[in-house]
């Protein structure tokens, strides 16, 4: 297990190193000076330009700047947003809570609804199973932005049950504001998890060891819990992990749709304003979250099925 963890961590560090270089490099070569946001494309007197360039380290060679950026990023400092005169880490800190809350709430919905419906569909017969299949087929085809406008119109505008826009204040109010965005974000993933769970549970129920357990006279609920679900847990964990990782980038869409003050929506704004430091900082944080989630899935995988630990899964 230790060797597996060490290998997986080394892979993570390597990926992040290359990714950080790609993020920094790509925005470095982008046309237009970072100062133009500040000056509005007016020509600057040479002294002022030199002074600004020195202040933001724009006059140093690329690799030196990348190195500075990386080292301070490791210390939690992601540089300064030139148009906003604010530290990127502070800007991220103000917004990371909303995004984390959104992804967390969505994950809870996905796990409870997806796994629950999947088990229901696999063990239920006729009408129940068909209902689950129909619901998952419809919601699988609903992209987050489409789910967002439908929910906004039906639940917020027509029924007036939940707010349509905004972040809210305090815990209960924030939760109320996050509920619709989380549902919109969960729609596709719930369907995916439901379908995989249903297939996995159904496959396990038909296996010999389950029939043996039944013929030994064990009560059905405990057979399901101890023999079916434990074996079905591996594909379910994989699909849950993959879908949760994909939420991290998709949160930008839902945050924009619902006017949430989160990281993703802010990244989109920064991209429109060419606020390079903010785009670099948030991209780095999102990629890190994505890669970390994938690593956690791999670890969960190894815990659930010890046979896989030693060789390690093909990366």
């Amino acid at each position, binding site marked *: 297990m230790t060797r597996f963890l060490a290998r997986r961590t080394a892979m993570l560090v390597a990926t992040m190193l290359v990714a950080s270089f790609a993020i920094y490099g790509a925005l470095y070569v982008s046309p237009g000076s970072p100062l133009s946001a500040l000056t509005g494309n007016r020509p600057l007197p040479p002294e002022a330009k030199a002074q600004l360039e020195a202040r933001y380290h724009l006059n140093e060679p690329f690799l030196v700047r990348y190195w500075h950026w990386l080292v301070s990023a490791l210390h939690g400092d992601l540089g300064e947003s030139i148009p906003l005169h604010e530290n990127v880490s502070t800007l991220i800190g103000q917004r990371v809570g909303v995004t984390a809350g959104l992804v967390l709430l969505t994950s809870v919905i996905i796990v409870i609804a997806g796994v629950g419906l999947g088990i229901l569909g696999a063990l239920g017969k006729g009408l129940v199973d068909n209902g689950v299949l129909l619901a998952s087929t419809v919601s699988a*085809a609903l992209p987050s932005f489409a789910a967002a406008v439908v929910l906004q119109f039906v639940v917020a505008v027509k029924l007036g049950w939940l707010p349509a826009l905004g972040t809210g204040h305090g815990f209960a109010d924030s939760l109320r504001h996050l509920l619709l965005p989380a549902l919109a974000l969960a729609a596709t993933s719930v369907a995916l998890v439901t379908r995989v769970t249903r297939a996995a549970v159904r496959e396990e129920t038909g296996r010999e060891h389950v029939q043996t357990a039944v013929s030994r006279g064990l009560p059905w609920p405990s057979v399901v819990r101890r023999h079916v679900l434990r074996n079905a847990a591996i594909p379910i964990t994989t699909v849950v992990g993959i879908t949760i990782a994909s939420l991290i*980038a998709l949160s930008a869409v839902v945050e924009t749709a619902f006017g949430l003050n989160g990281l993703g929506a802010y990244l989109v704004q920064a*991209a429109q304003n060419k606020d390079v430091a903010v785009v670099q900082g948030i991209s780095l944080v999102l990629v890190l979250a994505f890669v970390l989630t994938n690593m956690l899935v791999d670890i969960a995988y190894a815990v659930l099925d010890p046979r896989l630990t030693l060789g390690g899964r093909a990366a």
Partner: protein
Amino acid sequence: MSVLTLDIVTRRRRRSGLGVLGWTSLAVVAVAVLLAIVGPVLRPFDPNLADLSFANVGAYGSHVLGFDGQGRDLLSRLMAGARTTLTGAAFVALVAIVAGSLIAVVTAWFGGVVDAFAAAVLDVLFAFPGILLAVVAAAILGPGLLSAGLALAVAYIPYVTRVLRGAALKERAMTYVAALEVQGFSAWRLCLRHLLPNISALIIAQGTIMFGFAMVDLAAISFLGLGVQSPQADWGVMISDGKSGLLQGYPLESLSAAVCIVAVVSAVTFLGERLEARAKESRR
């Protein structure tokens, strides 16, 4: 983007015939493609002609679906949007498929260092979700369909390559390839005339599935304001344009565009999964 193709579900389906769902999907796709090609001839009004005094007015005379938030004919905009939306998705799918097949065949053919290097590069690329890559591309190249489309295509390459590389490897190991190699056929000729055609069914299936993903992701990026730019008609842009109307109780612009996207994407994905199941079955 969700990458799991649900072959657990699809594999059990009967092989023969398209079934009701299949024919419906085919009809939806055919209508959408037809609209994209001949839409400009058919559409009743100029999709960009705005008259604010008609903003959000419902069905009225020959304006079957009524008007959008800026008083433009909604049906005409939906028809004009079909062309933008489908062309964008086709561009993404084509680039991803061509690049993916090329990488898959080359790495399968040479193996060794080439394969390991490509695998390492693709692994890093896996760490960038498509939407994130597109947002960063918009920051670099400026917002627009081209930068969004290129970014998405790049983000899809690892997924396409992973599937095709497996098939190409299997094909590479076949005795007929070794036989042709011994007879002195060049690698070029072997790859182009034998290897690629033999995995073409899988390539087409992957292309169809990627087309569905691309439609969703491109619409999401246009919805964010970083893809196709308003006032050009595009289904993703229309969902975003219609949002202020939606909050005031006029949902038709957003919802009609959303329905178009959902219908076409479901149809394309259904057909793609069927094609993939069939391609895999015949390879077994």
